[in-house]
């Protein structure tokens, strides 16, 4: 289809340029800070940290069940193996392995976030 038949205008290019640049920046920025990081998984329920697990200290995979979400922690990452929510988007997200990534089960208000273990933890210790 020809551009004039679609009625394209310069503003379209501006919108695309801004969105593409923003998207590229969001993808590229996390790559700058990589390295052999040891990870900490933070499990939150309703925005409050329920449990913090140092993944590098794990010998074998461990499972935690928080509000209907079965969270599997391994040495290299975290995934949600099962959940009782309707859409199971958290399960479909798969495994996350990088600091800054997160898995969310919005209906259950459960979020698992990966952090760099060396960073100073806002939640020191565990609040049950």
């Amino acid at each position, binding site marked *: 289809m020809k551009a004039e038949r*679609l009625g394209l*205008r*310069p503003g*379209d290019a501006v919108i*695309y340029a801004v*969105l593409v640049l923003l998207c590229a920046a969001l993808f590229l920025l996390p790559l700058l800070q990589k390295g052999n990081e040891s990870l900490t998984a933070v499990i939150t329920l309703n925005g409050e940290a329920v449990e913090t697990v140092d993944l590098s200290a794990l010998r074998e995979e461990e499972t935690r069940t928080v509000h209907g979400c079965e969270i599997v922690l391994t040495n290299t990452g975290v995934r949600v193996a099962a959940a009782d929510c*309707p859409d199971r988007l958290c399960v479909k997200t798969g495994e996350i392995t990088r600091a*800054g990534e997160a898995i969310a089960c919005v209906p259950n208000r459960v979020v698992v976030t990966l952090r760099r273990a060396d960073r100073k933890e806002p939640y020191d210790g565990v609040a049950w």
Partner: protein
Amino acid sequence: MKKMNPAQKAALLGVFGALALALSFLENTLLPAVPLLPPGAKLGLSNLVTVVCGALFGPPAAFCIAVLKALFAFVTRGVTAGLMSLAGGLLSAAALSLLLKSIGKTVSYLGLGVLCAAAHNLGQLLMSVCLTGSPALLSYGKYLLLFALFTGTLTGLMLCVLVPRLQKSGRFSSIKIGQPEEQNQ
């Protein structure tokens, strides 16, 4: 083209609302079958109806459709889905309101489609952050934005084809919903 009375406008909005609900049901049925999509991603077919309505009848109509869709999601899929749909729909309608006056001058329906898709996803992302109380979810925004670029281009192209034809058909050209009538009947 004769003026429409309020009842006719309400009926017409109802028809478009039903179309939005049907498409929303369709994409919820189809999409889980497609692999490799980021979780939560949708084609934005039902949001397309919101934007078409806004383009034909003015921004208030777009907000009406957005709220109707959210109510449908609330009834059929629960509170979370309803709130997510509401946030996405309202932000998309807001983006439409911003750009509508510039259509045909500085932007076309393609740019409108992309911006509305991005706004829709941003709304849903912000709502999921509010619901879970976890700003860490913002890191997920990049996938949603990337996906919005594709689906927005798709819906934008559909708008480019659809809206001028619907307007040319003469059926909808004189209707502005939510705006005072110069004269009725």
